């Protein structure tokens, strides 16, 4: 692998790791939002 | 909520200090409230049986009162010691018999009792063990491994273990679980001898017949609260089954 190849690989690792984490956190966030909406509905209709 | 004994100790006839006083006790496991604002007062020397279906929080109550777990909120005072702060002081005076025996299966009866006796610094331990084994009818098996004991014998030995340090407050959590009729009867006989009027006893069970036999007071625990409390002297024993199901039935959803 060329020198630039290693450089590219190094940066790829950084951004894939950070991006992966942020995507995972974002997904969890939307699951939470959905769950809140569901509970809200439940409370309304359950009244 | 808990019957008419909300009055302070001084007003109770007999004027004895309360052995147990609980005010607004909550115990959460995560977000699940196993005990929900429970109040309880018990004079020392009395025998209280707490009835309740599975999941009512009886075991949790016993575990809080016997210092095994801390309360989430509320005042708890047992034997004059505030919990959880003074748990260390209380432990010496508390005996617990539960459906778990707390016995080491790879040790003999004698070794088990010697171990616990030393932990409690019981004086004249050997004589004490001999007397207790006599009392629970296990003298002949003193040097047998606990693992060779039947369930009933283990439970009797666990009674001896709980009595080693002569506690003045005893908690019995479903002690009849898994015992056959014969063993239950022996356990009952031992319990009768414990009820001397000097010792405070709290028993939990879901078995109405066994629970009513020798107690002074009854309570019904449902959904983490005591919903019924009465003195056995004034209790309508024949109608108690109906009373119990009336209280439990209202909350049948809890069980499912």
């Amino acid at each position, binding site marked *: 692998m060329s020198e630039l190849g290693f450089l590219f690989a190094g940066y790829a690792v950084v951004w894939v790791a950070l991006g992966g984490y942020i995507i995972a956190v974002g997904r969890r966030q939307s699951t939470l939002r959905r769950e809140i909406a569901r509970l809200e509905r439940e409370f309304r209709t359950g009244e | 909520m808990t019957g008419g004994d909300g009055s302070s100790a001084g007003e109770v006839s007999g004027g004895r200090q309360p052995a147990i006083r609980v005010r607004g006790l909550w115990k959460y496991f995560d977000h699940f409230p196993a005990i929900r604002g429970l109040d309880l007062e018990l004079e020392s020397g009395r025998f209280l049986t707490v009835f309740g279906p599975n999941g009512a929080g009886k075991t949790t109550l016993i575990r809080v009162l016997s210092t095994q777990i801390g309360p989430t909120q509320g005042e708890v005072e047992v034997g004059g010691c505030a919990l959880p702060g003074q748990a260390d002081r209380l432990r010496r005076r508390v005996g617990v018999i539960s459906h*778990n025996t*707390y016995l080491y299966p790879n040790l003999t009866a004698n070794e088990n009792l010697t171990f616990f006796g030393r932990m409690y610094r019981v004086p004249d331990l050997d004589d004490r063990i001999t007397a207790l084994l006599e009392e629970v009818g296990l003298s002949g098996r003193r040097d047998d491994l606990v693992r060779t004991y039947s369930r009933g014998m283990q439970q009797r030995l666990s009674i001896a273990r709980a009595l080693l340090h002569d506690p003045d407050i005893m908690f019995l959590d479903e002690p009849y679980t898994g015992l056959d009729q014969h063993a239950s009867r022996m356990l009952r006989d031992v319990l009768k001898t414990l009820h001397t009027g000097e010792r405070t006893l709290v028993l939990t069970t879901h078995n109405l017949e066994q629970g009513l036999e020798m107690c002074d007071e009854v309570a019904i625990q449902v959904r983490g609260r005591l919903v019924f409390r009465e003195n056995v002297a004034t209790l309508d024993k024949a109608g108690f089954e109906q009373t119990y199901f009336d209280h439990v039935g209202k909350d049948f959803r809890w069980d499912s």
Partner: protein
Amino acid sequence: MGFLSQAWVIARKDIIGELRTRETVLSMLLFGFLVILIFNFGIEPGLREENLVKPGVLWAAFTFAGILGLNRSFIAEKENDCLQGLLLCPVDRSVIYLGKFFGNSIFTLSMGLVVFLFFSVLYNVDLLQVALPLGLILVLATIGFAAVGTLFSAVSVGLKSRDVILSILLFPVMVPVVLAAAKSSGRILDGDPLSSAGLWLALLVVYDVIFLTVAIMLFDYAVEE
């Protein structure tokens, strides 16, 4: 001292139970032998590098075998919910910790001694020459191992996959002990005097003191509910 004698009562209870079944120490020993045997296939006998690898084999065997004992330490307390009975006793939590620590140390130490013997026979080590310094290293390593191990054993005992979790928790934290023990015993096996391993022994002592103190302080939280 009442404090230590109470702790000894707990350790004695564990030892009596162990002498009866011999389950723990025997399985530890067998496992330790097997580790040495397996590792041995990776070493070309007679090579000059052999001497560099040998202490590593020895301490790998010690660590892997030792963890078996720690695994059992609190599982024994879970049968019949004995741990609850123990916690009901009117003694400070640190007494219970010390009791379990003494027991674990004694089991690990006896395993270590026999594994050393096995090792010295297989690799033609003149045990008489190195017995004392190696023994000292073994004692120091055992204390550190049991100090942290007893705490982690209590931490992991309530978990479903406690065996795996205990190994995963303990091994990385054990790195300084294994390293110091392997390096210092390497010196001894090379025929150097004990003083040449002074730095490593000091590291072991520091590790033992720090983690024994920390574990005594934290044990309360590992068992409370």
